[in-house]
């Protein structure tokens, strides 16, 4: 039996007999949970910020909101995700006297962080939509907000879908930093199997494989979605 085969056997032994798979499943769940919820929160926050940024600016309120949004985006894009996680988990929450599970903290921080990035993506998306679409809505008596939500944003999202897919992939990959606040993700799960079996080669290989498969699946889904959304573009 070659050395590599022995390592594989040892991995399988720890993966199955010592319940390693349970840890991996939990890790995978957490990774997906953090990335998916992060993306959804990010889309909501990003869309709101993007709308504020394209608002006409001759009144005071939009200007104040715009200032707040600029600061928000600068903060979350200007500091590493790890720092944001550590600040939230070890500084902000303890100061507020709150005790929140690390996965929840990670998920919220990922949402806040991707909101900053998505707001820039979304702003580009909104600006890529023909201004005539907003005019058409306003001229028939729909409000700015209604036209935005029913007409402009759906078209903007369609335009930025590939970029949003990439953002999701980035989020999945970045989840590996949540171990800094003690959350159990895919990396921690395999790391645990490695430590227990004193054998890291195969666990990390399998981990890499899972990440790649995840990314491939998401890319495929994005392609499918793009195709179904481009229905309204037929003949163009």
């Amino acid at each position, binding site marked *: 039996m070659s050395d590599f085969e022995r390592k594989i056997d040892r991995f399988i032994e720890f993966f199955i007999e010592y319940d390693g798979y349970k840890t991996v499943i939990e890790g995978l769940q957490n990774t997906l949970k953090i990335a998916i919820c992060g993306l959804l929160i990010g889309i909501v926050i990003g869309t709101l910020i993007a709308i504020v940024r394209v608002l006409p600016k001759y009144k005071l309120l939009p200007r104040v909101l715009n200032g707040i949004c600029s600061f928000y985006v600068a903060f979350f894009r200007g500091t590493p995700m790890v720092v944001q996680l550590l600040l939230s988990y070890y500084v902000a929450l303890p100061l507020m006297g709150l005790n929140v599970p690390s996965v929840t903290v990670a998920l919220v921080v990922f949402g806040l962080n991707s909101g900053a990035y998505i707001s820039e993506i979304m702003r580009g998306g909104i600006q890529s939509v023909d201004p005539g*679409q907003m005019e*058409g809505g306003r001229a*028939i008596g729909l409000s700015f907000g209604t036209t935005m939500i029913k007409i402009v944003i759906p*078209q903007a999202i369609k335009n930025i879908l590939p970029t949003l897919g990439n953002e999701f992939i980035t989020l999945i990959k970045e989840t590996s930093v949540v171990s800094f606040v003690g959350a159990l993700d895919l990396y921690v799960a395999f790391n645990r199997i490695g430590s227990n079996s004193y054998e890291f080669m195969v666990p990390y290989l399998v981990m890499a494989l899972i990440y790649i498969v995840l990314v491939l699946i998401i890319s495929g889904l994005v392609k499918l979605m793009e195709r179904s959304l481009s229905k*309204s573009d037929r003949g163009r």
Partner: protein
Amino acid sequence: MIEVVNLNKSFGEIDVLHDINIKINKGEKVVVVGPSGSGKSTFLRCLNCMEDPTSGSIIFNGVDIADMKVDINIHRQKMGMVFQHFNLFNNKTVIENIMLAPVYVEKKRMKKLRRKNPNNEVVKSVKEIKADAKAQAIELLKRIGLEDKADAYPSQLSGGQKQRVAIVRALAMNPDVILFDEPTSALDPEMVGEVLELMKELADSGMTMVVVTHEMGFAREVGTRVIFMDEGRIIEEGNPKDFFANPQNERLKEFLSKVL
């Protein structure tokens, strides 16, 4: 129906409209002509406050809608607008384009009624609102012979079809007036006719219309009044017969000699 009083509009330093005064009565078909850049679009867009007038009033059905305090959306629902580039909603099918605003407005109205009187019998459910709007939309599509395109997306229509859908989309709100900004200028020549035909039909049905166009034939045939704009001013106006046969102003003579 619409009374424009001392309307001025500038974009920053550039004064585009100077002291426009005009009264448009119910049932009139006012055709606006003039050289490119003379402020025709800006004038039209001030009528429904798509551009905020710099000064002056736009009295529509007795309300000064240029006043920033009025809810402009409610008034725009009664002023249709048709654009050069159609501006159909690209993410909606033809029938959704037509139904969207009527459903939205009716839902809002019902909500208000229900708030006033929770047991109100005349209040329609969302389902009924949609069914009514759909029936109306199909009726409108039949009128322009496009009922088979109900579920098509705008990108699948020809320019002429798009513009006719845009016109019935405006009609679906039962507007008091429809504003047209060069509705045939972006069309291939062979499609101009079908759009003008529909506009004539509208005119015959008694609709009040304000039309910016380069189609002098339409102005002559359908217009009840023709207005010549130049450099942001109304320079001459009159009934089409005198306007074309007997122009007074030099600039208008020059303009007509070019376009006729």
